[in-house]
């Protein structure tokens, strides 16, 4: 499975846009990029998943360049409730979806 590298921590302020970049240099052809959010003592929660280019849903956008060696999670106009740990996961989708490997996540702290 592709190894991922993310910043250990980030700080932001309410109303700002936050971009968290994940590096995955050895991503495989059939790998998808998935982001999860985790609050203390709660299970991780799916945010967004993509394969290439740009994906957007109601909570975030995911930007994936053509070489797919990195990806950027964009959270628009963060609020205090977005303070959490964000994990970037890379792994195969579909029928070979055997496990999710969590690396070191990014602790995002949103300040008033």
């Amino acid at each position, binding site marked *: 499975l592709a190894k991922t590298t993310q910043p250990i921590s980030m700080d932001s302020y309410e109303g700002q846009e936050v971009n968290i970049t994940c590096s995955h240099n050895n991503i495989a052809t059939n790998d998808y990029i998935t982001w999860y959010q985790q609050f203390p003592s709660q*299970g991780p929660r799916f945010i967004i*998943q993509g394969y290439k280019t740009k994906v957007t849903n109601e909570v975030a956008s995911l930007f994936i360049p053509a070489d797919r060696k990195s990806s950027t999670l964009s959270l628009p106009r963060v609020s205090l409730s977005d303070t959490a740990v964000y994990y970037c996961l890379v792994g195969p989708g*579909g029928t070979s*979806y*055997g*496990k*999710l*490997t*969590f690396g070191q996540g990014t602790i995002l702290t949103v300040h008033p």
Partner: protein
Amino acid sequence: AAGVIQSPRHLIKEKRETATLKCYPIPRHDTVYWYQQGPGQDPQFLISFYEKMQSDKGSIPDRFSAQQFSDYHSELNMSSLELGDSALYFCASSARDRMNTEAFFGQGTRLTVV
């Protein structure tokens, strides 16, 4: 909507005792994953099942075993408990027959070994 149900939510055991954690996946989900998350740590993959068969194995100690039953619920059995087993244990489920799937996590079981 139905979510992943884990029981119990909290469990306190003494060293060398056994514990059984249960997980009830979302209906029609065929894959179950188990994770262990120690204090201040990232979730560590233990084991997963697809259609009641073990599909992947991670850093699960030999003292632990798990299975998925005919109704798709799963149990994680932990024996000879050690202080270091104190952690949050998460179960997740997904539907593997679709591409681009997401895994849904339960609220977790907090195991404290004293």
